[in-house]
């Protein structure tokens, strides 16, 4: 489906040579764009050949969009054929495609080991960390798209601002009114308590959960599973003390806090760090109800 669009681009840029071409730079860039389109076609032909040549390849259909570049302003899917190697992940395949076929293919990635949370994307209809997703576990062709329900910046990159705002709206930092005496004295915490918050502290801010939650999609103000989990991480930490816990419960109890959650479980399903998000949200709901019953 993708191969049609570059043709159109070529035509349009040839027949009406840059209506608004201002500086020389612009012209040259337009020229460059045109060549890039040609280049792409040539490359795709090459790839198809390669695929036909019976090597073991992986077929990737990747979402492409760039608000500035002709031919990419209308989203499309590009197909890449990548030689398969054992242990290959979706991220590896994307990197290969970028380095060998199309250097403008854009996606966030850094650690390659599921700790930086940069590369959550929509792979074959599910939110996945590309670096943690083995190609062999997927049906081909593999469809790679940016996270749903977030604004697409370019290709597989989405705007994370909203997610960060929600994460930071829950006062995501340790607070307590009392510290042990002595500069070098740590606060005590039982093993059980550390165990209780352990899973919740593993969040890598990948936003896969937020993207999978249908409620978060509909209600922009909903804190979302990751932020609620962050609140949980502190609310359940015994080192913070009762006063602060009251405050925490008030935060998560806001109108767009825990009550929005409809236990869809999608968040729990997609979390690459296996955080039992729904369970944490539900526990907070119960805590909040208990807390309110005290006042009634």
């Amino acid at each position, binding site marked *: 489906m993708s191969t049609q669009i570059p043709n159109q681009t070529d035509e349009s840029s040839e027949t009406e040579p840059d209506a608004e071409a201002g500086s020389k730079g612009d012209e040259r860039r337009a020229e460059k764009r045109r060549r890039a389109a040609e280049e792409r076609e040539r490359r795709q032909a090459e790839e198809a050949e390669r695929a036909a040549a019976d090597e073991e390849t992986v077929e990737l259909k990747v979402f492409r969009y760039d608000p500035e570049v002709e031919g990419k302003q209308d989203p499309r899917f590009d197909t890449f054929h990548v030689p398969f190697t054992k242990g290959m992940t979706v991220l590896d395949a994307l990197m290969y495609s970028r380095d060998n076929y199309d250097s403008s293919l854009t996606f966030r990635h850094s650690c390659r080991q599921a700790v930086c949370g940069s590369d959550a994307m929509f792979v074959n209809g599910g939110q996945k960390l590309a670096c943690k997703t083995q190609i062999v576990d997927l049906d081909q062709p593999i469809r790679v798209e940016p996270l749903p329900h977030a604004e697409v910046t370019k290709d597989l990159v989405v705007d994370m601002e909203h997610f960060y705002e929600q994460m930071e709206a829950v006062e995501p930092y340790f607070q307590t009114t009392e510290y042990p005496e002595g500069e070098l004295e740590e606060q005590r915490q039982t093993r059980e308590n550390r165990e209780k918050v352990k899973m919740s502290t593993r969040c890598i801010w990948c936003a896969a959960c937020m993207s999978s939650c*249908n409620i978060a999609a509909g209600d922009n103000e909903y804190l979302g599973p990751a932020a609620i989990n962050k609140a949980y991480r502190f609310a359940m930490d015994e080192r913070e003390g009762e006063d602060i816990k009251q405050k925490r419960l008030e935060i998560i109890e806001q109108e767009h806090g825990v009550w929005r959650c409809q236990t*869809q479980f999608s968040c729990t399903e997609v979390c690459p760090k296996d955080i039992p998000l*729904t369970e944490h949200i539900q526990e907070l709901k119960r805590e909040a109800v208990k807390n309110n019953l005290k006042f009634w």
Partner: protein
Amino acid sequence: MSQSYNRGLIEDFSRWREFEAGMWAWIFHKFTGWVLIGYLFTHIAVLSTGIPAAGASEAALMAGEDVYTQTIVSLEGLLLVRILEVGLLAVAVFHMLNGTRLLLVDLGVGLEAQDKSFYASLILTGAITVASVPTFIAGAF
């Protein structure tokens, strides 16, 4: 995110094939809930024929010739209504079973088995519905 860029094919519900148990449960629960509240309104409307019927004569009532009895009997006589009733039963049973599942989830019970309990609600709903068909259809023909 409401201003999110429209990505056509990618939007939620066209992805139903990829939905996991929890999501299906949510959709079904929602659907059945709406059907039930919709039915509650119709139900009361139909039952309201009991108000004029209350003014009917003793004899008419005994003979079942009042508006209420007439309405119900004629409705029940329609095969379509019978079939709809079976549907309603299925809807109600599912809503009840899954509602129970949700109540348990709210209590923090069995979250790990949430997918299994959803499948169990589905199967049970099917079984109960099928088992009730004879009772519901009885006398319709």
